[in-house]
């Protein structure tokens, strides 16, 4: 077996840091053991695709471009008019989908290694994100269950709100260490601990 090493292995080991008033108002960490697949649709084939998805995952494609569709261990994101992300904790899904989707029905691309999934939690999470992204995080604009694809220090990310003070970021793997350092620097005055999973 080939061992796996994430992009943040070294960074996570460095641990937390107390804020300017001694507090730790943030918890930051990396999520493991999940799978990401990107689906691309072709005109006039969405019916076949939805049928295959219902059969495999028990859920059809989401319509909303801002709300995450949750179904069991699966989360579906409509990331473009004809492109979707499936994030799942079920390791059988990639193979099952590959089998269920003929090449002329949809494209299927594995991206689990292309993204690092970072969790941000705590009372300072909104303040921290205010330094990182230009998205309006006020609850009326970005409710729990929303996601947004946006820029974070020159790099595209997907940001999801899991709770009032709980967020996840999907960042490009090759930029992940840099983004993590950027994030920790912004977190300095608040104080943070590193979540272990």
């Amino acid at each position, binding site marked *: 077996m080939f061992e796996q*090493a994430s992009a943040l292995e070294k960074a996570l080991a460095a641990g937390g840091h107390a804020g300017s008033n001694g507090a730790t108002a943030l918890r930051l960490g990396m999520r493991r053991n999940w799978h990401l697949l990107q689906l691309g649709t072709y005109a006039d084939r969405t019916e076949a695709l939805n049928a295959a998805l219902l059969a495999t995952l028990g859920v059809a494609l989401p319509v909303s471009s801002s709300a995450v569709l949750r179904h069991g261990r699966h989360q579906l994101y409509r990331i473009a008019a004809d492109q979707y992300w499936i994030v799942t904790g079920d390791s059988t899904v990639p193979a099952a989908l590959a089998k269920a989707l003929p*090449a*002329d029905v949809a494209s299927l*691309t*594995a991206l689990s290694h292309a993204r690092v999934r970072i969790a941000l939690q705590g009372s300072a999470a909104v303040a921290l994100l205010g330094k990182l992204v230009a998205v*309006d995080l006020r609850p009326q604009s970005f409710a729990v269950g929303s996601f947004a694809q946006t820029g974070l220090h020159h790099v595209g990310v997907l940001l999801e709100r899991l709770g009032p003070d709980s967020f996840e970021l999907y960042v490009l793997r090759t930029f992940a260490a840099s983004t993590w350092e950027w994030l920790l620097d912004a977190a300095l005055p608040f104080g943070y601990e590193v979540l272990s999973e």
Partner: protein
Amino acid sequence: MSGASHRLPTGGRVQRGETIEFEFEGRRLAGLRGDTLASALLANGVTLVGRSFKYHRPRGFLAAGVEEPNALMTLGNGARTTPNVQATVTELRSGLIARCQNAWPSVNFDLKAVLGGFAPLLGAGFYYKTFMGPRRGSWMFYEPFIRRAAGLGRAQHKSDPDRYETRHAHADVLVIGAGPAGLAAAAAAASGGAHVVLVEQDFVPGGSLLGTPATSAHEKWRLKLVAAAQAQPTLELLLRTTALGVYDGNMVALLERHDHASCDASRGEAREVVVTLRTRSIIYATGALEQPLLFGDNDRPGVMLASAARTYLNRYAVAAGRRAVVATNNDSAWHTALDLAAAGIPVTLLDQRTTADAALREGAAKAGINIHWQARPLRALGGKAVTGVLAALESGGREQRFDCDLLCMSGGWMPAAHLTTHTGRKLIHSVGIDAFMPAGLDAGHFMAGAVSGHFALSAALIEAVTAGAAAAAWAGRPAASLPPTHLPVPDQACGFEPAGAPPLRAGSKAFVDFQNDVTLNDLIAAHDEGYESVEHLKRYTTLGMGTDQGKTSNINAIRQMNLLRSTSAAETTTFRPPYVPVSVGALVGRAIGRHFRPIRRSPLHDWHVANGGVLIEAGPWLRAWYYRWAGNSAAEAYRQEMRVVRTAVGVADVSSLGKIDIQGPDAAEFLNRIYVNGFAALAPGKARYGVMLNDDASVLDDGTTACLAPHRYFMTTTTAQAGEVMSWLEFLLQTAWTDLAVQVVSVTDQWVGMSLAGPKARVALELALPGIDCSDASVPYMSVRELEYEGMPLRLLRLSFSGELAYELYVPADHGVALWERLLARAAPLGIKPYGLEALASLRIEKGHVAGLELDHRNTLDDLGLGKMASRDKPYIGRELRGRPELQAPERWSLVGLECLEAAQRLRGGAILFADGEPQVGHGRGYITSVTWSTELDKYIALGLYQGGLKHVGETVNCAYPLKNESVRARLVSPLFIDKEGARLRV
């Protein structure tokens, strides 16, 4: 420590219990919490605080706020030295160190004051008329003197140790200015639940109300307004926050200052924060700025704006003088006179008009103020401090001298409408106030109070409540119960008479722009010479170009220019952001040092660092340049690494190559259109090298695309062009070829890439990954296999950049280190070593593969010797424009190889090529793009572009490098230096 000689025993909004010590010009002084540096200095009797820019005239405080042109100081020391800070907006803090500027040896005795004596020579634009002789270039002799004389404070070269941040914010309504209008407008806007952000540059809210006596009804009303605003749950009041500029999309840049308190960078505390706030609507409640009067020597220390004297008196309990003259053309300064008199200071009032508001007249009479009508100051008396004023009384009929140590003046008010113009709106001249005010506002923008020319509190209040309601409605959150609009306090009269023509007298200087030493005479000179448009005036005289950006000078200058031109056509200059100067560091925030731009790292990055890899920047990437095992410099190491690849086997990290997943029923057709060569028939399991052109036929990129299965392709691009190619493919599919059923996804981050190259590459692979059939029959040159190996997806491509037997291996990123280490460990008996970018780039030169500097957007397919690749049978992007005659000219510079003919010499990139025997001048016949020492040929070889290209193979050329006084002989050869038949590739 000297006592605070000018602090009044009672009154003010300072906290008398809290003494704050600071240092000024090496003296230890004390002020109170709530002071600014300016009020603390005035309280200590300090009135001489600077020397002027050009004439080094003594200067004191003109203002009490952001418009101050004179009192610029250098704060702090060492790496925290900050020049040009206005003392009038600097909140006093313990340990503050302040020094005067532009004076030597001291502000009290400045030797350069002698320059004042040459004033007639130093008029507007004098430097355009002289310093030209005796010969061409003489300016270079004079310039250092001018440069040293110019400038204000002194900065230093040390890195700034403080921390800055930037952040984003959002609001429904932004209210700028927390004076009476802003406070009322914000409360009204927030009443229906709108999220209102109210910003105030001062550290206390209240604006003009802070100039009223601390025991007055106005103060009670101020506290009520503040309380009402703070009672709104959806209203955020941000103090010490200045709106710098208004930009497209209702984005307002704000500057938050934190340096009044601890801002310890090591604890993550920022000194300043720039906020980019996006809002639905904006209310400008920015107030107005009082303007000076023009008269001789109106810059003497002790000559002050009337409102400033009132603010020092009532807000800080500081008497700026002991005997005052107030000169005005409007009612507002009467309040200053009344308050000064109430504090026991004898006051003489000179009013240019014939009457004033009745209540004010009555009050003044009661207070025993000596009033002169139709009276205007002619000249301030004194040197380093004002001692009196010579005034013309009864409309110039009589001149009289009045002694004083404080001369307050008011030339009317200019709405602080700067921000309203940042989105391109103009200001118009208003006759009623003889100043400029907004002609109109952008949709969703509103204004209230003095900024709209409503100087009376009663009018401002009504306007504020209306604006608050309108702004909330615009934001989609209508106001609920509006606050009352009746004024619970006496109104402030604001009757006004235009300043009119001042006496034009030679000899004494009437300053229009205090900071830049622009006088009335300079305006006259500029007009004489034809620099009469307001922009010419500004540029010729430097008027308004100081750190105050003309906040106290533009209006007077425009008034005077109109008088000179006998015109009423009033144009104003353009106000540029920022409204106040902002630290460059605050704009940058944390994007400093290594965070300047994000770093892109290969999945093998940490391994390289830990194992002697030396890194180099390649666009956003940090790549392994060379490894210490091979040498201590790139120049040394790459040869060793090349030898390993040529004789045994090496492995290089190629993860930075762009990788694109292309799928869909029309994928083959798509590839066939974008590449110049044919891809329609590429069978599953096969890979092909391809070149893409831009529409204009310049080369966009090259790379390999492999067919994994029907409808599924794996494209690689160069590192540099990966993003460009991805966007281009998406552009074509989404705009032009929407009928093609194709999906493209960047998988650059998904796969780690390794290039395993060398005669022992196959053995190495078999040792590392036993069980895979790597034979030439099973994995022939230009083929691909998609495998699952020990549960790990693996893409094995047989292609070669180095010219050796080589494989590219792609596995999911997290597996990268394990595979890399296994290759190195298991193939160790073969002598496998990692090799870096320098060796990678050198190996390909021996094979004549173009990269980097050859692919520089100027070169065509034919220039790179790749013309034959282009299909004649199918269309491809760039085909039409490729046929343009200049692109097909036979004498274009095209790719050649070069071999160095001089054993003791080397070839260099950037050398210019000349034919043997021709003079080495001009542009030559080509140049060298890439150079390497060939370990195979034991000499320097290079790629270059040469006029006529391969037609000249065999000829000798000179490679001129005059920057090092070198010219080296080389022979033009085929760029394919080794293994011309490609035998090594196919073993």
